[in-house]
């Protein structure tokens, strides 16, 4: 059991990372990562939905017939996201004002459907839960990293407005590195593709080195 958890975590974070290995969920990975804080927010929201969707599908996997599984998954995920969106808006309104923009976008994140289809529909509740957490963590890591690099090069800050997302206690994360703005291009869409490309190349390079050793 413990080895399988280790594999699941390793897969989610590195070997089979949603963004850097599976190359899915690239739309949010490119669109919202204009700052580290935005990447982190989107990552956390996606993780929550991914875990719940994985557990739900693992619970229902025996009654869902293969022929209609995709529409059932789509209905489940879309309803789940909408319910989370409404609950956050009602009871965690301050957080919703920061994250609200991202929540609706999760519906079209194929990483969720991908994990539900590839993993949760074939595994038990506990492994599906761990897989959701691990994949979500890997996704969060990737988005935060892309966001931080773009933010650093583009606006010269790190984790700007983090206290709005995480609360005043996390104000120490906000760092102004340099004042002169930086390369605007990195904040704009091309910057997302450039950073993503370099990070992908870097990961491949590391993996090749490791295998040839």
């Amino acid at each position, binding site marked *: 059991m413990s080895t399988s958890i280790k594999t699941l975590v390793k897969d989610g974070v590195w070997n089979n990372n949603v963004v850097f290995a599976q190359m899915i969920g690239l739309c949010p990975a490119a669109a919202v990562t204009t700052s580290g804080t935005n990447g982190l927010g989107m990552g956390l929201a996606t993780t929550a939905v991914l875990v719940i969707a994985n557990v739900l599908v693992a619970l229902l996997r025996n009654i869902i017939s293969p022929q209609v599984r995709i529409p059932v998954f789509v209905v489940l995920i879309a309803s789940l996201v909408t319910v989370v969106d*409404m609950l956050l808006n*009602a009871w965690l309104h301050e957080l919703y*004002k920061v994250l609200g923009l991202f929540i609706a976008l999760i519906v079209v994140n194929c990483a969720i459907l991908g994990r539900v289809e590839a993993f949760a529909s074939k595994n038990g509740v506990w492994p599906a839960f761990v897989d959701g957490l691990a994949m979500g963590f890997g996704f969060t890591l990737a988005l935060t990293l892309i966001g931080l690099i773009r933010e650093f090069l583009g606006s010269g800050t790190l984790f700007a407005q983090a206290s709005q997302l995480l609360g005043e206690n996390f104000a120490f994360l906000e760092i102004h590195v340099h004042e002169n703005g930086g390369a605007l291009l990195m904040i704009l869409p091309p910057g997302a593709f450039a950073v993503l490309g370099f990070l992908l190349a870097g990961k491949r390079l590391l993996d090749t080195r490791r295998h040839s050793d």
Partner: protein
Amino acid sequence: MSFATLKEHPLYQPLLLGLMTLLASAALAWASSATRGAIAEAEARDLRDSLAQVLPENFADNDLLADNTDIDIGAGKPLRVYRARAGGAVKGVVFTVIGKGYGGEITVLMAVDEDGRILGARVLKHTETPGLGDKIEIAKSDWINGFGGKTLAAANWAVKKDGGDFDQFAGATITPRAVVSAVKRGLEIFARHKAALLAQKTEEHDG
């Protein structure tokens, strides 16, 4: 009949799909009714906060949120106006104007006193480029406070690049240009419909 053979029955799939959709709808209906009140409350609180931000402290002694009225400005949708009163007399009005920015509509909430002077302005909603155009937000820059005290006559309503009074941002001219022209249009609406805007009575609340 075992579950495995039942699953192969042609009726199983439409029934499963129907059941799932029914359960999903039930969950949505529950969530919607459970959160409607709290969401409306939270949005009213947001609006009240924004209203308080565009007015000087202790400017009004009434509940602006309740003291609202729709005024026909001859352009399709009527204008929702919140009145700020002191001792029952209308001292100023608060309303939103919409500008066409670089990334879409920019909603600006502005407060104007009875003489047509701007008391304050805030951007409520926008989709401008982060790090560039978003300096119109008070959280990012105090640029928007530059409108305070301005009137239609005593200001040059354009960004500096176009020969006006208002700063543009490095790399973003369209966004501040849109906000400046939206606020200017707000003042023009005020000038044109001053009597209706400042009318002492509202249907809901008789001073």
